[in-house]
């Protein structure tokens, strides 16, 4: 069975490239929705254990927002999109065409915006994976949490079924002329699913 540790640099590069293509898809979808350009890049991608993911994103008690979806199909997985609360507020400003800093608290409208961005990102990354792997990925409607990083992240691993302590992490950056917002996108495949995905991508170990 494929394990996360056995991925080599070439395989990680391939995953990052797929992440970049996903980000490109997402930027196009966002531009269509907003009627203006929003850029996205993938500075880093890699596979990390839960304990390191906490320190990658921030401090355990820091407030974060998280959108989670379950993916069914040939490679069952879950995905989540996580960003610091401050970044979430900036992202809402960016999406709503407001000046950066206008959104001060996360209200229902803000949550809807984040869920929609989460949906678009999930769809875009999954489409990129689907294109290369010829596998079908079907995302669920999203779930949402906003609270302490440690609590949100561990619960994202546990609450919709526990498969693994490890995730494929795609760091994403949204930006326009004035603002740059960092966030992280996670893919946690079920036990057999990682092997299925890698094999379908021609990256068999």
């Amino acid at each position, binding site marked *: 069975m494929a394990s996360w540790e056995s991925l080599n640099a070439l395989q990680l590069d391939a995953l990052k490239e797929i992440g970049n293509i996903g980000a490109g898809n997402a930027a196009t979808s966002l531009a269509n929705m907003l009627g203006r350009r929003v850029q996205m890049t993938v500075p880093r991608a890699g596979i990390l254990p839960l304990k390191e993911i906490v320190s990658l994103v921030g401090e355990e008690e820091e407030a974060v927002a998280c959108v989670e979806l379950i993916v069914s199909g040939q490679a069952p997985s879950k995905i989540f999109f996580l960003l610091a609360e401050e970044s979430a507020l900036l992202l809402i400003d960016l999406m709503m065409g407001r000046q950066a800093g206008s959104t001060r608290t996360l209200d229902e409208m803000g949550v809807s915006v984040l869920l929609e961005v989460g949906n678009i990102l999930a769809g875009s990354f999954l489409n990129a994976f689907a294109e290369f792997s010829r596998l079908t990925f079907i995302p669920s409607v*999203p779930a949402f949490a906003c609270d302490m990083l440690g609590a949100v992240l561990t619960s994202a691993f546990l609450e919709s079924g526990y498969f693994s302590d490890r995730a494929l992490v795609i760091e994403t950056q949204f930006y326009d002329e004035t603002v740059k917002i960092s966030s992280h996108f996670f893919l946690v495949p079920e036990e057999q699913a990682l092997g299925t995905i890698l094999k379908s991508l021609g990256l068999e170990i």
Partner: protein
Amino acid sequence: MRPEERPEEIKVGIADWKTALSPARLITLGLGSCVGIALYDGVNKIGGLAHIMLPESSQFREVDNRAKFADLAIPDLLKSMLRLGARRAYITAKLAGGAQMFSSADKRLTILNIGERNTQAAQRVLASLGIPILAAETGGNYGRTMILDTSSGEVLIRTIGRPLKII
């Protein structure tokens, strides 16, 4: 209190447990659906804190870390406290965490109720060991940081946007 006067603070990670002697404080950060179990011998002033992720180890083929599971972590923590000189008859417990952090229209994302199952498993294991639970701050939909003060046995619960609570 100025920082330099504070007693030593020992951090307990995710899927981890630690013991300490008075006046050290044991702290675990950001419990969501995980459960924190504080054990305390108030006579010998010996404390222990576990941060478990899952209720039962029996559902898994491989157990890479015993501290991840309520059914293994709590007896291991108890043993370690007894080795430090704690007396079983004096040990009591306090619980925190076991929340449901995510909400969704899709039931598949929330139906497992892992937080509640973690809390129930901790209660079950403590009952089987004959350890009384003095207080619990569990459930709800918010994260908690849990701090055990081994000089008093008090447990502080810190959250985002709620007043500090002592149990």
